[in-house]
C-alpha cells in the first residue's frame, strides 16, 4: 500500500474581500457574494509571486512540519495551469529552489480542479512501479493572473494557493485506495485560457478579455451534475464500498452553492460533507489538499475513517479516490 504522509499548504498574504468586490461590482452585495459562493475572502498572489515560489513555500512548510529532508524526495510532481513559463518545467525550478538532489525526477502536469486526484494516483503508480519510494506532490496556481478585472463570475470565486503532499511507501498517514477517472474534451471551450499556448501565438490578446480566463459557469455546473454522482458511484464500486461506508466526503471546493446542490442530489448527510471555502475560495487543484489538512486540524479525521475525494472541472476532467485513515 501507498500512503499520504503529510500535507501542508501556503496562501499568499494579500486578500480580496467581498467588500472590495462589491465596490467593483455594485450590483452584487457583500451578503449576496457570501451567500451564493460561500466565500468571504480569497488570497491573491503578489505581483512578483509565481507558482514556483508558492509551491516552494508549501513544500518548505511540509518539510518543517513533518521533519522531512529534501534528500528523501525522489520525484516531484507539480500540477499547475499557471506555470512561471511555458518552459522550462516549473517542477525543475522548484527542485533547485528546494535543494532537492539532482538525482530526482521532476515534471509538471496540466490539470485544474481534478489535478490532486490525478496526482495521487500517478504518485501511487510511480511508487508501486518500484522506481521510487517518496513522491512530493505539489499543486500551485496563480489563477488571479489569468482573470479579467471586470469578470465578476470568476473574480468572486477563484483564489491563489499552493499545496504540498508527501506520498510514500512507508506508512504514517492514510492509505490511497483505487481511483476512477473521467475525461470529456467536448467541454474544452467552456473553461479556457486562449492566451499563452501556440495556437494564438501571433494574436495580440493583451488588453482584451479574449486573453483572459473564460468560464461558462452554467455549462460547468451542468457538467458536474451529470458526472459527479456517476463517478462517486463508480469509485464506491471500484473500492467495494457503499455510500454509508464513507465517513467524510471532500469534494473540489468549487463554490458553496454548487457543493450544496450536489450533496443534496446524492443524499449525503451534511455532517459527512466537508466544506472549506470561506477563507480561501476556489483554489483549483489545491482545494482538496487544503480541505483535507483543515479537516485533519479540526479533528474530523480519525484512525479507521474512510474518505472520498472528488475533483472535477476544466478539460473537462474529473476523478475520485478513496483514502483510508
Amino acid at each position, binding site marked *: 500500500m501507498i500512503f499520504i504522509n503529510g500535507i501542508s499548504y501556503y496562501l499568499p498574504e494579500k486578500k480580496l474581500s467581498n467588500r472590495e468586490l462589491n465596490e467593483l461590482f455594485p450590483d452584487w452585495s457583500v451578503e449576496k457574494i457570501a451567500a451564493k459562493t460561500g466565500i468571504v475572502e480569497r488570497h491573491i498572489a503578489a505581483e512578483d509571486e509565481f507558482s514556483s515560489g508558492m509551491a516552494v513555500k508549501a513544500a518548505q512548510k511540509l518539510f518543517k512540519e513533518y521533519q522531512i529532508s529534501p534528500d528523501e524526495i525522489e520525484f516531484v510532481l507539480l500540477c499547475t495551469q499557471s506555470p512561471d513559463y511555458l518552459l522550462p518545467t516549473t517542477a525543475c525550478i522548484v527542485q533547485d529552489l528546494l535543494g532537492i538532489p539532482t538525482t530526482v525526477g521532476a515534471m509538471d502536469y496540466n490539470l485544474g480542479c481534478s489535478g490532486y486526484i490525478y496526482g495521487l494516483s500517478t504518485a501511487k503508480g510511480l511508487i508501486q512501479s518500484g522506481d521510487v519510494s517518496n513522491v512530493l506532490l505539489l499543486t500551485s496556481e496563480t489563477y488571479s493572473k489569468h482573470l479579467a478585472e471586470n469578470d465578476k463570475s470568476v473574480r468572486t470565486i477563484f483564489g491563489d494557493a499552493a499545496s504540498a503532499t508527501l506520498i510514500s511507501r512507508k506508512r504514517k498517514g492514510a492509505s490511497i485506495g483505487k481511483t476512477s477517472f473521467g475525461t470529456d474534451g467536448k467541454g474544452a471551450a467552456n473553461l479556457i485560457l486562449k492566451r499563452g499556448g501556440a495556437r494564438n501565438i501571433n494574436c495580440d490578446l493583451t488588453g482584451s478579455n479574449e486573453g483572459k480566463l473564460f468560464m461558462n459557469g452554467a455549462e460547468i455546473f451542468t457538467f458536474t451534475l451529470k458526472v459527479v454522482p456517476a463517478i462517486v458511484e463508480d469509485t464506491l464500486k471500484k473500492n467495494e464500498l457503499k455510500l454509508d461506508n464513507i465517513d467524510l466526503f471532500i469534494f473540489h471546493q468549487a463554490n458553496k452553492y454548487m457543493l450544496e446542490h450536489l450533496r443534496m*442530489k446524492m443524499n449525503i448527510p451534511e455532517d459527512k460533507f466537508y466544506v472549506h471555502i470561506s477563507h480561501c475560495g476556489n483554489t483549483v487543484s489545491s482545494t482538496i489538499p487544503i480541505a483535507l489538512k483543515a479537516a485533519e486540524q479540526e479533528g474530523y479525521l480519525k484512525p479507521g475513517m474512510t474518505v472520498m475525494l472528488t475533483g472535477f472541472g476544466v478539460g473537462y476532467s474529473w476523478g475520485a479516490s478513496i483514502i483510508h485513515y
Partner: protein
Amino acid sequence: MTIENFVKKFEEQLEDITPGTITPSTAFKELEEWDSMTNLVIIAMVDREYNKQITGNDLSTATTIQDLYNLINS
C-alpha cells in the same frame, strides 16, 4: 408539473422579485434580476424538481418561461 407550478418555482428562485411578475410569456433573461448566478440557480431547480440537467446552451436558446418548460418536458 404544470406550467403554473413551474412559473411559481421559477419565481421562487429569484430574490427580491414582486410575486406575480413572472408569467409563461416572460422573457426571463430580460429580467433585472437575471445574472450569471441565476443561470446556476435555475439549472439547480430543474435538476431538483425534474431530475433533468438542462445546459447553459438550453437557457441561451429559450426566450420565455414557456420555451424552457417545453424544453424540460420534451
